[in-house]
């Protein structure tokens, strides 16, 4: 037993010492080190990341711009060059923050050396969260538009806005934030940066058009079709199941396909814009119609009696719709003469949802 302890202490003071404190400007996962506790990526030659170009300091920008104007470059070319310089500047700043270490490779991001299929994936940086919040909550941009623009999942955009709203509320209330914790954790995690100065080089955070694998498509089927037939994705979906929609309609952003199709058709910019506006109008109308329908249905079926503290909502319910045992999942109310089951063995009383 003593030997085991000694071995552990030896490891913690030897190869394991690198994990004690975070590596400045980098992640610090186990798969990034070898058995001797040496950082694997320092071994590889530095040339892989590209040669170290000279970064032009920001103070010299006006001078360069003046020079370029004198040389007679057009606006586009100047912008392109500026972006290139900005890119080099930021890369240099990042390298300096890491203390000259090479950037992590994807397989350095594995916290568990045995598991090849799990990597620590980047989280949204603080700036990016702030920008997303500003776009949605202040500028009032549509969530799905922001999602497509930053390549961030729609649900994540909504969550960022929700959390940021609470954060702002806390600041207003002078409630203490866990700022040191935030700084320390963000320094340990890989991040998706927000680089507004380089619009061409936007880093996508995640894939936004994920297609869930439908259980019906898990089986292999043999489906003979004539050779001359144009067998499309839509037909393939039908072959799996009558009600299954094609991939084009099951992804989160089908509107991107429509935009891309217009581009492929070679339409002019104005024409594309007009068509997009038309599509937006149709979508908005459909949404409004659905909302109206729901409102009407509620009006018809629900009666609201305002109380002192709560409003009571009454809704018609058929007593026949309670299943064979009278305990169907969506059944309402207490059955007379039917004992409660909640004291029975194995009955779980943990709530299944909150609000």
């Amino acid at each position, binding site marked *: 037993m003593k030997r085991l302890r000694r071995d552990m202490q030896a490891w913690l003071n030897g190869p394991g010492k690198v994990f004690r404190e975070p590596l400045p400007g980098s992640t610090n996962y186990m798969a990034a080190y070898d058995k001797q506790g040496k950082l694997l990526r320092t071994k590889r030659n530095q040339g892989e990341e590209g040669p170290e170009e000279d970064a032009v300091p920001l103070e010299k920008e006006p001078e360069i711009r003046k020079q370029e104007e004198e040389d007679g470059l057009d606006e586009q070319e100047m912008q392109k060059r500026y972006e290139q310089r900005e890119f080099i500047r930021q890369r240099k700043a990042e390298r300096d923050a890491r203390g000259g270490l090479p950037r992590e490779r994807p397989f350095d991001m594995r916290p568990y050396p045995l598991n090849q299929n799990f990597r620590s994936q980047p989280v949204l940086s603080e700036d990016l969260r702030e920008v997303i919040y500003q776009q949605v909550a202040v500028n009032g941009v549509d969530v799905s538009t922001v999602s497509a623009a930053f390549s961030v999942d729609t649900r994540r955009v909504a969550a960022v806005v929700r959390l940021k709203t609470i954060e702002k509320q806390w600041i207003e209330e002078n409630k203490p934030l866990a700022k040191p914790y935030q700084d320390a954790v963000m320094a340990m995690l890989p991040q998706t940066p927000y680089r507004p100065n380089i619009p061409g080089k936007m880093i996508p955070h995640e894939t936004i058009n994920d297609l869930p694998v439908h259980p019906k498509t898990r089986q292999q089927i043999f489906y003979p079709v004539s050779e001359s037939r144009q067998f499309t994705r839509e037909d393939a979906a039908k072959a799996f199941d009558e009600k299954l929609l094609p991939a084009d309609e099951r992804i989160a952003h089908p509107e991107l396909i429509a935009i*891309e199709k217009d581009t492929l058709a070679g339409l002019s910019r104005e024409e594309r814009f007009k068509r997009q506006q038309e599509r937006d109008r149709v979508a908005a109308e459909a949404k409004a119609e659905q909302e109206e329908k729901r409102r009407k249905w509620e009006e018809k079926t629900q009666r609201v009696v305002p109380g002192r503290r709560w409003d009571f909502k009454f809704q018609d319910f058929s007593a026949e719709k309670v299943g064979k045992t009278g305990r169907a999942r969506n059944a309402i109310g207490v059955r007379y003469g039917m004992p409660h089951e909640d004291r029975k063995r194995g009955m779980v009383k943990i709530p299944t949802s909150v609000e």
Partner: protein
Amino acid sequence: MPRTKKIHALKRPKLRQSWSKFNLYNLSRVTAPPAANKTFFQQKWLAKSMLRSYHNPDVREGTWTRMFDRRLPAVVPMDHRYLAKYDGSEMASGRGMGVDKKPQRDARGNEIRGPEKTPYMHMTFHPLERRLDTAIFRALFASSTREARQFVVHGWVKVNGRKMIYPGYQLNPGDMFQVDPERVLYATGARKVKKDKAESNQELRRRAEERTAKKEKAEEDRAVGAVVEEEPENNTVEPTAEEDDTTTPQTYSTELKALLKRATAILDDSKRDLSGKRQQELRTFRKDLKSTFSKLRGMDESDLQETTESFETALAEILTKVPAEDLSKQEQAADAAASPSEPLPSNPQLQNKTTLDAHRARKDAELLQAALVRARANPIDTTKPYATPWTPRDYMSAFAFIPRYLEVNQNICSAVYLRHPVARPGLAEVPTPFHAETMALGFNWYLRRR
């Protein structure tokens, strides 16, 4: 699993959902168990016992087998450009298996193989990731699932704004959970040495290590016979002040010390170029700083509690002063740089020096302000249950990752459970330390009973 405190063993190591150094050591030496002289049953048994010791052993086996589902969730990322360009019929062109493609090569000339396999087996334990205690651990709000469980049971956790006391609550997509920030700081921060002291044991050990390293070095030098002179103060001070830009985790007392020294030097330097009023301002400013510093030093040695408070008030005083100071500096820098009306020295070198001084002084004021703001956000407070100023606990960085199915805001210690974890080509979202083979064997074990 017995409710025991000893969950980390060295003789028969088990991996746990925990940031303990024992766990880290076990993680460094774990391998896929050899299958050569074992029956299939034995392999499966071993695999499932390994997996269950990590994936929430507090959930009873019977409960887990009821939760287990052989249908594992996965997604395929689609490219909207591809979907717009092709309608799918191109898959049947050629000789019925799609047109032969030329093998694509990457930058180094290696052949790019097709899409990676989806690691379904790694998703075996995805129902357990829905549990509230696991999600709190995954969001880095607790140092182990056990601790997360305790937070829930003790009522420190809210789901959608309501107190939730069941660690087994199955989060629904869109649920927001909040943990009390004080608990999070306690769980993830360094431990105190004593109840009435603010220091952490980590800090003490670090200092001791530094001392021994220094001693060893001195002895080495003596052995070699080379007498190395003590480096002058200025040289040792400047690098630490420089490091402030990169916000390395340092103790704020040393940070302040270094800044004070540097500020004094530069203020002395630039004094002759400033107007009388500004000089006076600077002098009072420096005096304030010095008094704070002396209090800080006093606190380090003895009578802690009283000085902590006076230190706080002094900090607040300085904080009210610094912005004005900073502004005046900026004005000065702008004056020196831009306005031609001001009589500047005709000597270009001298002029350059003035602007440089102003620039340095401004930079210094900014640095100082940043340090003070940071010290204020992270003050020394002996009443807290964790070491202050707050620093992350040792070995945290090796375990620090946030899976994609959570969106976390660390400032308010809240997170949203976005969706259930899924597998995608080459990547599984359920964090598990085991080899694919072990996962497959474990999956097979539970499949047997379905």
